């Protein structure tokens, strides 16, 4: 199975893929922006401020998805001791951190016209802030600890324990009384959002996913070359 995670194989595919992913990202983002800003209807209650949803929600979804993936990879790192999995999870983290920051900032901007406040210490917002701190700690461990084994172990522990925060973020709106509304989109039930709003939301989600994939490809190449640079000295 780990043959698929061979650095040489990933690097070879990666180099050819970056331009295609970049082109697709620009294309999908352009369509998404036109849909989100100009073509989608305004909400009957929130009026045009609802358009912030098209950046806020995809950013939150992807930041949660990336952290879940990092946590899963971290468990695999402990089980299989595969160093390439560390490179993969380390390369996923920067875009995850950016998306968490975007979710928090755009949420704050959306909160002002909707709730009348920039910030509230409610369960969803606070748990998202904790996620941002976890991302920062995860990335900092690679800078703070010079010993590679130590930094790999500590970052994996942060990701595994930080994964407890994921269901808290997801179900915070059900478990506690928060300013956030309950989930409008459910995989098992019919969506509460009209298709005229759901379509731009999905297009923007696709654009954000493509961006995080692009950043992952570039960061993976950077990290792999860094490792091979050290390898040259040891030859």
């Amino acid at each position, binding site marked *: 199975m780990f043959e698929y995670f061979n650095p040489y194989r990933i*690097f070879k595919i990666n180099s050819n893929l970056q331009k295609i992913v970049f082109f697709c990202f620009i294309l999908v983002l352009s369509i998404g922006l036109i849909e989100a800003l100009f073509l989608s209807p305004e909400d009957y209650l929130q009026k*045009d401020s609802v358009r912030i949803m098209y950046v806020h929600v995809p950013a939150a979804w992807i930041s949660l998805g990336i952290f879940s993936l990092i946590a899963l990879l971290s468990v695999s790192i402990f089980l299989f001791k595969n160093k390439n999995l560390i490179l993969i999870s380390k390369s996923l983290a920067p875009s995850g951190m950016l998306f968490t920051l975007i979710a928090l*900032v755009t949420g704050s901007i959306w909160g*002002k016209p909707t709730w009348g406040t920039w910030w509230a210490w409610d369960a969803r917002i606070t748990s998202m802030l904790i996620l941002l701190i976890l991302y920062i700690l995860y990335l900092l461990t690679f800078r703070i600890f010079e010993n590679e084994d130590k930094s790999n172990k500590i970052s994996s522990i942060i990701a595994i324990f930080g994964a407890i925060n994921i269901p808290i973020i997801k179900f915070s709106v059900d478990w506690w009384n928060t300013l956030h509304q309950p989930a409008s989109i459910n995989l098992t039930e019919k969506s509460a959002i009209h298709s005229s709003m759901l379509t731009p939301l999905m297009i923007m989600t696709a654009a954000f996913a493509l961006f995080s994939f692009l950043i992952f490809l570039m960061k993976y*190449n*950077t990290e792999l070359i860094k490792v091979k640079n050290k390898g040259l000295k040891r030859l």
Partner: protein
Amino acid sequence: MISDLISMNGYGAYVWTAFAFTLIGFSCLYFIIKVQLKKEQKRFEENFSMLTEEKYNVASNQDIYKEILKDLNAKI
């Protein structure tokens, strides 16, 4: 009509700021990673060119080094 698009019924400042923050964030991260990649590629080129003939031959026969050099448009 353009002023309607910009003002968005009074919510324009919030909507445009949120979208601008997102796009600026994207651009910043993209360029930071791009600069890091270029820096590592340059360092790799320098280190590779300083190898002794024996080490150069060993490295040149490894697939991953070949691929990195190919990516840098360098000849082995």
